[in-house]
């Protein structure tokens, strides 16, 4: 299963990653970061195909997908 990493310091909560995810593997979290932005979190990472669109379209370099080996 792929793993999701969000950099809390860099994310500004624009939630573009949620919209571009083709399998809807992300959802907005209940927590906010130190600046008051709503961060994305994993909805169901089993659905993640590792296409990398969220990494590609993130304006703040805050999201990364660690692909499962094998």
């Amino acid at each position, binding site marked *: 299963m792929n793993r999701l990493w969000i*950099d809390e310091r860099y994310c*500004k909560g*624009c939630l573009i990653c949620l919209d571009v995810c083709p399998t809807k593997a992300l959802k907005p979290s209940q927590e906010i970061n130190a600046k008051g932005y709503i961060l994305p979190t994993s909805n169901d990472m089993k659905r993640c195909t590792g296409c990398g*669109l969220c990494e*590609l*379209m993130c*304006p703040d*370099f805050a999201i990364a997908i660690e692909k499962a080996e094998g």
Partner: protein
Amino acid sequence: MKRHPMLKYLKEEGPMGPRMPLIFCPGCGSGQVLNYTLHAVDEIIGEDKIRKEQFLFISGIGCSGRITSHYLNFDSAWTIHGRALAVATGALLANPAFKIIVFTGDGDTGSIGGNHFIHACRRNIDVTILCLNNGLYGMTGGQHAPTTPIGTITTTTPYRNREAAFDLCKLAEIAGASYVARWTTAHPRQVIKSIMKGIRKKGTAFIEILSQCPVHERMLPVALLKRFKESTIRISKTEESRHGKTPIGEFCDVDRKEWNESYQEIIDQFLAVNGKAHEQIVD
């Protein structure tokens, strides 16, 4: 912890403390264009065996200007308003091997730097111009710009804009640029492909990227990206079938003589006649 793959090209720490996160507003298109550009540069470095030191990033003033100023771990210059292309011309004269990428905004290219822009295209200097077009002056408070579409409400056009907008791609094409393309921030793969093509192209490559300004357009970034997809249409479609949508795609891709190459011809011509005399001088 895994981090974003493009962070290796950015300066996260500076002498005055951390430089990141980026200064842009949440959901700004400038950060996305920076992301796409770094992806393209990453692929060029991997495929063409071009060294990282060969790249030079130049920008003018505006939101787009902030991209090079603080974050890039490449050689970069933050120049005066509209004059990024003048600095690029000088840099190219000093070292023709530079791969120059110029970040400009629509105000930078379309209004104050308009003449620098058309003459860079006329000379066909070997630069890649990325124009981040958000249709207004974002940094100064959302005033209307030469690229604001008719009927848009901005802070200086509260009764909707009445003036026709500049089509920068057509301007670049007529002025003589070798490669002209227009995309939006909602087309990441196409933007990356175009930037790679532009860097490899000998001559001026002008790539206009329609970019969102969620703060001054007062909409969510996601809604603006959706609007980009709905309001644009491929250039290959005929005029009648476009229904007033903005054409996107590659406007032109021609081979014209590059500026430095054409001057090199004169040098070669004189060297052929006075070759021996020249060698003596060099000795």
